[in-house]
């Protein structure tokens, strides 16, 4: 299949280190969009700041590259104002779970119909090697000199606890499976979290490609509608499961909860002010 998301400009200077997992994620996204026959013009990728958040710079899409940590509120509003757009909120573990942690919790509660893609390499890349919220216990950095002793943030368990409508984990070492998970997440109606393990070749010598490969396995015979089982899988630490943990397909989306869309599905941006109603409302203040 032809990839419609490659930039026409050649020799783009990508800001990533050779061997970075971001290259694979970029590839997987472009293929998932192509296979789902999404058009660039109706796709919006919202990202924050960090190496992961640069991803939409490198393919054909509408892009809102905003502030560190703030992709989710922006993406939520974009989807609400124009539900005809396909909306992705993308960033790294520091961006989404650290700086944007509060938005992560409340985006799950709102359940906008968008896909939240989080590159999780368990370290800060752009600021050069400090711990991230998902860094493993004992991980030593120039700042965490004695090793991380804070409990690592568990995004999947948090999302399942909040009854998120779709929760999955992928590993970019397996491109084909990552594409399949992306496609399921994008097709899912409601908030969909895909946390993707990726190695950081420059700053994380602990959680390397081979570490992830050894540690991970795909969920088999797991029922994604079983929330308790999903939670149990999400808190495993010895071996780390991959795949779709939890799905709650019937959940009302944020857009569906907006009164203006109850009967009329026209995006609000295409609606005109009803001056007669306004006149009446003003007159009622007599």
């Amino acid at each position, binding site marked *: 299949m032809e990839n419609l998301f490659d930039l026409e400009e050649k020799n783009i200077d990508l800001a990533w280190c050779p061997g970075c997992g971001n290259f694979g994620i970029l590839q997987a996204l472009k293929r998932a969009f192509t296979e789902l026959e999404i058009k660039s013009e109706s796709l919006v990728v919202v990202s924050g700041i960090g190496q992961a958040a640069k991803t939409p710079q490198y393919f054909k899409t509408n892009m809102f*590259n905003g502030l560190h940590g703030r992709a989710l509120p*922006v993406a939520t509003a974009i989807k609400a104002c124009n539900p005809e757009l396909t909306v992705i909120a993308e960033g790294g573990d520091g961006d989404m779970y650290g700086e944007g942690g509060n938005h992560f919790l409340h985006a799950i509660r709102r359940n906008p119909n968008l896909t939240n893609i989080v590159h999780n390499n368990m370290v800060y890349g752009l600021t050069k090697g400090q711990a991230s919220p998902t860094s493993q216990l004992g991980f030593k950095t120039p700042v965490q000199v004695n090793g991380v002793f804070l409990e690592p943030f568990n995004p999947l368990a948090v999302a399942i606890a909040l009854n998120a409508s779709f929760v999955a984990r992928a590993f970019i070492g397996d491109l084909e499976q990552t594409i399949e998970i992306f496609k399921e997440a994008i097709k899912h109606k409601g908030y969909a979290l895909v946390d993707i393990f990726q190695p950081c070749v420059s700053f994380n010598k602990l959680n390397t490609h081979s570490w992830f490969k050894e540690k991970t396995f795909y969920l088999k015979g797991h029922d994604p509608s079983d929330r308790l089982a999903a939670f149990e899988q999400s808190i495993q630490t010895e071996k780390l499961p991959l795949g779709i943990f939890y799905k709650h397909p019937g959940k009302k989306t944020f857009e569906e909860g907006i009164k203006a869309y109850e009967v009329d599905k026209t995006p609000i941006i295409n609606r005109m002010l009803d001056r007669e109603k306004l006149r009446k409302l003003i007159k009622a203040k007599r």
Partner: protein
Amino acid sequence: MVKSDNKKIYPDKGKQMISLVICGEAGRGIQTVEMLLTRIFKLGGLNVFATKEYMSRVRGGSNSTQIIISSKKVLAPLSRIDILVPLDKLALPHLKKRIGKNTIILGEKEKILPEGEILDVPFTKIAEEIGNPIFANIVAVGLIAAIFRINQQIPLEYTRKHFLAKGEKIVQGNMIAIKKGYELASDLRKIESIAQLSIPIPDPQQHIKEEIILNGAEAVSLGAISGGCHFISAYPMSPSTGVLTFLSQHAEEFNIIAEQAEDEISAINMALGAWYTGARGMVTTSGGGFALMQEGVSLAGMLEMPVVIHLAQRPGPATGLPTRTEQGDLELALYSGHGEFPRIIYTPGGIQDLFYLTQRAFNLADEYQIPVIILTDEYLMDSYYNTAEFNLSKIKIEKYISKTKKDYRRYQLAKNGISERGIPGWGEGLVLVDSDEHDEQGRITEDLELRTKMVDKRLKKFKEIKKGEISPELIGNQEYDTLIVGWGSTYHIIKEALESLKEDKVSFLHFKQVYPLPSKTEDYLKKAKKVIMVENNATSQFSKLLKLYTGIEVAHEVLKYNGLPFFVDELIAQLEKII
């Protein structure tokens, strides 16, 4: 300047007015009394102005509402109290400094334990006779309406309408309460001081009955709807919440998405997301919340994304006095957001300004692709009065969105700095916006020559903004020696004071746009021998701004920062000392 020998009395004879104050603890229905009385007076053909001061608590404490009833419009608070209705024992100590020897106190003696003279009116006893002590406040409403000779049918009809949803029993009780109030009044009128209380019903040419009556929060909200607002996101914070509430309640009717965000950071980022799609978004907040929005304001600057920010000031720093007023965040608004980028700051002076400037803010944000801040305060939000109905034929929603072509570039270097604004999904192009310094396409760049060009592009917009600037309004004689300067909510207060001062050579210059500072400012200031700044803050922030852009130092400052607005009578006394 030669001073008049006659001691000036406020108000002058042509302007008959009564200052009525009701004071009691929170949660005991003062707001209902205020609501009913203002509407009843207005329907009765009198001008009303109401403002309140209240504590940051849900129950208890001492809150008061001032209602000024007048023949000619008076749109400013007074320190003086003509009639005081204390509802509990804390009321009199709370207002002690404002009670004069001519203040008539109407209340229940046993509830109040007064220090001074009081006209004992057993509101609760009468209410209990009707069947429920909750009718006590309504007896008071009836009594006050009757003292001012309002036709009894007006409170009866209005009260019926107001309580209709609560069922027939409550409605009937309230009707009896109103009637009892009228009966009480006929006795009280035998007392001379009460008999003298009357306001002649003004000339029907004033069309008071046809006017609308609303508070500042409602005026901002209606302005937003008229400006085509599709989206509001906010975190509740006094005194800005009224706008979120109003728009939420009318969201369905006007195709608005109203979302209570998890924090103010989310709120402004959502509003920027909304504008990106072509929707018109706003946030409403106060100082502390706006402080959290700073990075978002800066993002609007970098993305050249329109956004409308309603910033209702309250006294800071930090939590400060949550339910009180101040003009202390001018500098915060002025310097909000890191980096250099253009913005507009409007400072409405009253209900009409709040409506028309909020409406206009949406058009200008869209046209110039910049943040527009509407800087108000608690006093403006919580005051209301009758005013001319808004003229919708005067307003227009001006849209500035372009359909994109295949080679669309969001930040094309335009001559005047304003590039075409496309939106995703409309046209063949792609819309890229980036908080990093970016190229014309909207992609991240570290081309430093391009960086300079992009900064210049953003700042060029100042020139365009100047074209639509709102000049300050000069009130009084064009030829003046002394110029009183104010901005925002002090408009009517200073205007009232000026009228009463009757000094031929004193004029008042009011700014409803403080930034960019309007071009004529310097000329106005230079003409004056003496400039007096009146501001509701401690450091005279606007004087500093004037000095920065005109080099002129303001010699006299009248400042108030105890959390209350200026009172006209108090301001007159302060100005007299300087003039």
